């Protein structure tokens, strides 16, 4: 749960008083236009960015006061932050396993299984720096899942990912939530959020405009229409000009 989160970067207020309640076991989608503050909010919820004000609790533990309990309970797939690019996929997972104090056999077994399920087993000598975008997302997901966290935070896990990799990631997430674990993820792909999530929050300009079960937010419309209505954008916007476009005379 996040309460009254604020973050300012110079003159820009990135997050302005965000309140979010994510029930345990839910598949929670965070949607919003570019620059809405989703990444900033998720970074603050995961302890990677210190909020100017507000607090975050995960399973009763304060993210900033009780990092031992929180960091053991969460897995993170951040957007825009790199991995250790000069390690291979298995090396990264082994390194993480040791950081997370998993014993060697458990780490090896889980890493092997994750790499196989995520279709990365064939590339186990390639360095991450040479991975494609989809492979990077998949190895980052494997890294987030390795210690079997209770809550998973994923920032744009489907950004730049091809349909095959997207289906793989989706099936892994489905299996994960069916076990009662919680997923919080942000995305631009509204159809995906609508089909995957049971709850959703719509953010714009640093604030949560609406939050609740998907059916309640959509109210019989598609999530796309509900989203556009909430953020106040018109579908026809921007097509009034460019009248020259489409003529063949260059």
């Amino acid at each position: 749960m996040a309460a009254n989160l604020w973050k300012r970067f110079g003159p820009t207020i990135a997050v302005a008083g965000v309140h979010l309640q994510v029930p345990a076991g839910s598949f929670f989608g965070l949607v919003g236009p570019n620059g809405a503050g989703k990444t900033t909010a998720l970074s603050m919820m995961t302890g990677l960015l210190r909020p100017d004000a507000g607090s975050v609790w995960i399973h009763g533990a304060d993210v900033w006061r009780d990092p031992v309990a929180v960091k053991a309970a969460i897995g993170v797939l951040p957007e825009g932050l790199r991995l250790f690019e000069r390690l291979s996929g298995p090396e990264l997972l082994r390194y993480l396993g040791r950081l997370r104090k998993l014993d060697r056999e458990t780490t090896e077994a889980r890493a092997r299984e994750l790499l196989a399920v995520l279709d990365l087993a064939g590339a186990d000598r390639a360095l991450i720096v040479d991975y494609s975008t989809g492979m990077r997302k998949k190895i980052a997901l494997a890294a987030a899942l390795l210690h079997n966290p209770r809550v998973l935070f994923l920032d744009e896990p489907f950004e730049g990912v091809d349909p095959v990799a997207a289906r793989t990631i989706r099936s892994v997430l489905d299996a994960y939530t069916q076990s009662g674990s919680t997923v919080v993820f942000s995305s631009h792909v509204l159809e995906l959020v609508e089909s995957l999530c049971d709850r959703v929050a719509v953010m714009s300009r640093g604030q949560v405009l609406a939050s609740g079960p998907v059916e309640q937010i959509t109210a019989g419309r598609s999530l796309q229409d509900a989203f556009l209505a909430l953020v106040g954008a018109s579908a026809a916007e921007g097509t009034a000009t460019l009248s020259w476009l489409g003529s063949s005379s260059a």
Partner: protein
Amino acid sequence: MARLFVSLKLRLIAGVLSGPGGGARLVGLIIAIAGALCIMPVGFVLLAAQHGKPDAASVAVVVFTAFALGWLVFPVATFGTDETLDPARLALLPLRPAQLARGLFAAALTGIGPLVTTVILFGAVAAVATSPAAALVGIAAVAIEVGLCVAGSRALVTALSGMLRSRRGRDLGVVVSGLIVLLIFAVNLAIQASVLGGPRSGAGLAVGGTMRSVAAVARLAPPGLTAHAIADASAGRYPVAAAELGAGAATVLLLVWAWTAALHRVLENPDASTQQASRGGRQAAAAGATVARSSRLAWMSGPARRWAGRAWQSRALTTAGRELRYYRRDPRRKRQLVSLAMPVLWILLGAGAFAGSGLGGPGGAARVGGAAGVAGSAAGAGLSAWPAIGAGLFAGLFSSANQFGIDGSAAWIPFAATSRWQDLRDDLAGKSLAGAVLTVPVFGLLYLVLGAVRQDGRGAAIAFALAICACGASSAVATVISVLLPVPVPERRSSAFGGGGAGQGCLAAVATFAGLGVALALMTPVFVAWAMLHSGAWLVVAGPAYGAAAAWAGRLVAARVGFRRLPEMLAVVSRAI
């Protein structure tokens, strides 16, 4: 078309200057222009002053050859540098290769480099030409030489452009550029040592002789031939001069042809970027590696094996293992290793040129007791203390400065698993351990060899101990600074000589070098005890122990301070530059 390319280049420079960090880049540009304005007249005058001297023709040949080589090597080491010169960026425009070649040629000729080259080459003409006709030949020779430089450099960069754009090619470029800097440093040291070492007139003769023998070989290549045409014209051998200029001009034409052919290839073939490594047999290899690791400790007894297994799994060793992989795979880490070679050279110089303050002798303690600033006194033979301390300070600094900068935004991974300050302490210990694994054996081997060569085992052992002590002290200071002032280190494509971010990087560099002074101050107890005890033998054990204790204390401070500001450190090292 040529004008369009030149204006595109100027606009890109203006765009870079007005973008984020433009202030620092503007300062860089001003420094570059000021440097060029100094180098041009100085280079011209120094060369022109050779007029009438017997070696003038040899000097001209060497200068022409050196410029041609510089133009070939520099763009490769700095990845071709310049967007306006990258043909792949222009592949989608409706341009014929000949148009493109003309435009790229004009863009390559625009800039400070060609101007500096031209002016300095005219200095060589002034040195050699003794008649108006020879001066005319000189002008033609300079034009041909500039053509050789630009066409040769473009042809090579275009031919290698696929490789230079790939990750592996860029990695190689970073390391090559570091090696070039080291080579310049070593050559400089060698020249200083040889010039300072012998009588002045003898050194001058040696340099002159070397120049003549280099010129004798260099004048067989096109740049040397072109330069020699001026001397032949001065001596009235016009047909020979014409033939030499003709050979130079023909080489320019050949290079232009090769360049155009390379352009065709680049425009018509897809970018040969980093290839995915082959995938066959990988799983078997991984499984084998796991088995090998678990059987590695099989010779140990039960409790020892369990303890070793736990240590192997410990956070510090885990981090050390990752860091060592990075030293092997990350070009920025490799450049750090190349930087480590500088202290090694310093020790060699200290052992050679400043042949020493006689650490092995009874008076060594007093001399180094007054070590604050005396780079080895003249008395006695043996190994001097000051290079060892200096080298240790630098090695500690290079291996521990900006610990999180190279991790960059990937630092979130260990930070996400850092819930107590002890975790950060272990990470720092691992990083220092990786640095020590690389540094200590190098120092050990070096002093083993130096001790054997100089037959001064005792002096070598003390110098080694002092180096390790200094290394520990500077590592302690650098670790604390790297927590207080982390600086992002970009995997910069455009320049291999780039350091940290503007402003912050400068501040951190100043702080780190000020840290050298603090590290030296940390060694004060060692110096005082040494001066009081009049013997250095105890240092062999106490020096490294003191260094290790200092490094340990530095880590404790850094970990306690750093743990409270993990998000802030992450924000700084993640900043895109």
